[in-house]
């Protein structure tokens, strides 16, 4: 039977965005795809379309001009998605931290799952990050697949069920 789950597990695709980096980390990502390191053997493919992507690789500090695109791209990637910040710039702003046109790390705008240090991040580190991301991706995927409970868990407040509080507030409302 056709199973989406299986494909997602085996081949998460990558989207790469340069949010204002110096190209150092970008060419290291390219080097990762080259035969010496060959990231593609883990089933990841570098694609250009956010709608097909599962893993989002971001390099560079966020500049004022690129933040809009960053968020647009992030929101266009379907759930579940994993974000990797490549290079110290993307993690914290790096050497560009608090320059006037720079908004430091990308985690100010989008949630980051894996941080990759280094300036420039070496291909080995990027590969490690992607492998971790694949794990996180699988975990997120499982969470998404599991059945959701819609009722709220009862919360204890001062040794009593909160539910009674809710009932009380409802009663207050009625009055």
């Amino acid at each position, binding site marked *: 039977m056709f199973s989406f789950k299986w494909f997602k597990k085996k081949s998460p695709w990558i989207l790469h965005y*340069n949010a204002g980096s*110096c190209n*150092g980390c*970008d*060419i290291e990502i*390219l080097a990762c795809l080259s035969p010496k390191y060959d990231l593609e053997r883990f089933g990841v493919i570098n694609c250009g379309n956010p709608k097909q992507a599962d893993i989002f690789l971001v390099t560079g500090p966020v500049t004022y001009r690129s933040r809009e695109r960053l968020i647009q791209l992030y929101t266009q990637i379907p759930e579940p998605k994993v974000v990797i910040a490549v290079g110290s710039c993307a993690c914290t702003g790096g050497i560009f931290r608090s320059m006037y*046109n720079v908004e430091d790390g990308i985690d100010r705008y989008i949630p980051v799952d894996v941080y990759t240090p280094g300036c*420039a991040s*070496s291909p080995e580190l990027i590969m490690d990050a992607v492998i971790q991301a694949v794990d996180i991706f699988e975990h997120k995927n499982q969470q998404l697949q599991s059945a959701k409970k819609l009722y709220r868990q009862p919360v204890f407040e001062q040794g009593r069920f909160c539910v009674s509080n809710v009932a009380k507030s409802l009663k207050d409302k009625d009055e």
Partner: protein
Amino acid sequence: MKKNIQIPLGSQHIALVEPVKFRFECENERIKEVSSDVGFVHRGVEQACVSKFKFDAIPYVVARVCGLCAITHSLAYTQTIEEMLEVELNDKIQYLRTLMIELDRIHSHMLCLAHVCENAGFEAMFMDIMAKREPIMTLQELISGNRIQFDYISIGGVNRDITPEIQKRGLEILAALKEEILLYIHEFQNNWSLSLKYKGVGVLTLDEAMSYNAIGPLARASGLATDVRAETSRLPYDKIGYEMVLEHTGDVFARNQVRLKEILNSIAMCENIFEGLPQGEIQQKVKGKPNGESLVRLEAPRGELMYYVKGNAKPMLERVRIKTPTFSCIPAFMEVFKEEVYADAPAILASFDPCLSCTAK
């Protein structure tokens, strides 16, 4: 029937990792007008150089303007400071600096060629060139300790020495690469898909190159003999066998040829440096604070890079101005796109090898 359409390319595009936005005004398939927007990666490096960092830390800051020609940036800046402080450097330092800058040129040109192949739809060649580029990265790592962004140059010298083992390994790597490049030249001239696709595409004539002030490989592919390496004598290019490479057709094909032949020339120069490295210290004492102004030009992989620095005997500089190769080339880029088929736009763009990080700083 004529129909005008506007097609945007960028800021995020598969053909080019860098954020640049072009807007093509097309008539059917032909591009008529082009406008570009390059400000996506503006970070404010120039401002930071005069307000956040002291002058002796700036070599490492300006290296981060661009990851591909980092060494050229830090070298150009260092030279301006050394000129102001009147430091005389020994031969060994000069040779080591030239070595790194030429290695950088080799790997940058190879990356560009790989991109051009990828945009021709020749994925296997892309992978091949990327694989053959790796030994150069390894060599850079051996010499400087990092693959990219090696903070190798400091004011008054370089930060690491090279050992006889590295020298031997380097010569091996360069000899192997030379064979490969000769094969690539053959391939780029005779392979059906590469030469057919690229002959006559994206032509920049000599007149256009002159009037739009093209520089670097873009100009040399049109037959315009401009190269900073031949014009200034800060680095020992005349002693290590520099030759200018010229082509005359000005299309994508010619640009590829210029790059390939320049790689050959750079390999020869690096071999000469490895073989005839003079003895000496790698770091010289530098005293004082920069005072006055100074201007340095260097040939980056993409063309002329210019640094203007003004200091007034304080640790903080007064002005740092960076003029980068791609910025000067943009008018020429625009001209090339006109009257081309839209489908060729990514390939032409890749053949310019633009560096938007430099341009926007």
